[in-house]
């Protein structure tokens, strides 16, 4: 039996488009606003709002631990979480390549549905376009998301002070390496799982424990090193982390050693870097480690009172090196 595929007709706005929406998208997403199928979703929310947007172009679209759909939802949710905003509404546009198997689209949509439920975010608006074969890479997803800001003042680099502790919620480099391995198959019989996950629940539990967060950032493109260097630059302070305290899985480290890659620059898609007052660090770790998503949360460093506006790493022999932002392309099409 011939496999059903996406054709240019699916993007024309006529009946094939309607069928795509009615048969494949609507059954998976329960938001009443979506089902109204108006030109804009009618929603209500009040208060201080956070608003984010992202595009996802990962190759391959399915990888151990996730897929482009899970990635798209998690990415949006985590950007909101990084400013302590509770996720509410999501809009997603799909650019589909002619020839994409409908079954693959269904898998992506199913995954998005599941991730939305996990994260407590509702898909309320969407759009699909189709491009000719060769003009796209199976599927690109673009998202925009809205959340309610839960901390006042909102976490931001300007709130970081000397003495603040730096925490990372779990081992680094897993998404970057998982996608690379799925694409290139450097190592036989190896399935490395991406850490891709929506992590609002972690931040929610920190806020509910009454902890005040100075700043957060999720270490996606460019990895932990780039994220730390950005926080240092934006806060105009010196952040120092300890090489021995950064959680890295043995397999990821070995894979990086063999390929000449630096795990500090590999993308994470289910982690957060959290900077908060030193006196709250112990309680924060307790709360985080109680979650399956952050069992290996670690205190990795602190904000120093030194004048350098840079991120530094103290090495195992007692030396120090600077953490520069990633230059050039380390790995294309990771997220």
């Amino acid at each position, binding site marked *: 039996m011939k496999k059903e595929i996406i054709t240019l007709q699916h993007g024309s706005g006529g009946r094939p488009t309607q069928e795509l929406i009615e048969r494949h998208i609507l059954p998976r997403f329960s938001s009443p606003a979506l089902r109204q199928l108006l030109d804009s979703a009618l929603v209500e929310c009040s208060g201080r709002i956070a608003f984010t947007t992202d595009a996802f172009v990962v190759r391959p679209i399915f990888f151990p631990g996730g897929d482009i759909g899970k990635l798209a939802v998690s990415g949006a949710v985590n950007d909101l979480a990084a400013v302590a905003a509770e996720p509410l509404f999501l809009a997603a546009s799909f650019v589909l390549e002619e020839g994409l198997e409908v079954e693959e689209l269904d898998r992506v949509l199913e995954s998005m549905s599941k991730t939305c439920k996990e994260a407590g975010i509702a898909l309320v608006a969407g759009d699909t376009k189709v491009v000719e074969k060769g003009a796209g890479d199976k599927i690109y997803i673009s998202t925009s998301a809205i959340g309610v800001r839960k901390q006042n003042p909102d976490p931001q680099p300007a709130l970081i002070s000397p003495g603040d502790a730096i925490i990372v919620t779990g081992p680094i480099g897993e998404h970057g390496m998982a996608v690379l391995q799925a694409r290139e198959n450097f*190592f*036989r*019989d*190896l399935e490395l799982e991406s850490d891709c996950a929506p992590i609002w629940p972690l931040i929610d539990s920190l806020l509910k424990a009454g902890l005040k967060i100075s700043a957060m950032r999720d270490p996606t493109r460019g990895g932990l090193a780039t994220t730390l260097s950005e926080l240092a630059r934006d806060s105009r302070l010196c952040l120092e982390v300890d090489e021995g305290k950064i959680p890295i899985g043995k*397999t990821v480290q*070995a894979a990086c*050693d*063999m390929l000449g890659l630096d795990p500090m620059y590999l993308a994470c898609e289910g982690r957060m870097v959290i900077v908060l007052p030193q006196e709250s660090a112990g309680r924060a770790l307790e709360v985080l480690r109680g979650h399956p998503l952050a069992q290996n949360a670690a205190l990795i460093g602190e904000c120093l009172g030194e004048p350098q506006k840079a991120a530094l790493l103290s090495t195992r022999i007692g030396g120090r090196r600077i953490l520069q932002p990633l230059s050039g392309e380390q790995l294309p099409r990771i997220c």
Partner: protein
Amino acid sequence: MCLGIPAKVVEIKEQEALVEVAGLKQKIRLDFVPEVKVGDYVIVHAGFGISIFEESEAQETLKLLREADVIP
């Protein structure tokens, strides 16, 4: 470029071996370490073993450290 990681030989088939490090398996060539046995560690460079990693020589390093009066 001189990246060379010690990896454990787990399987040998003629000129090639499967080596493992921290759960990662890779196929390498044994042209330059023909005397290698399963269980040995080799230094791997760009898909070839270039040296057998001598555990006993770790002892030699300890000797050097003693000579340097670094350890008793």
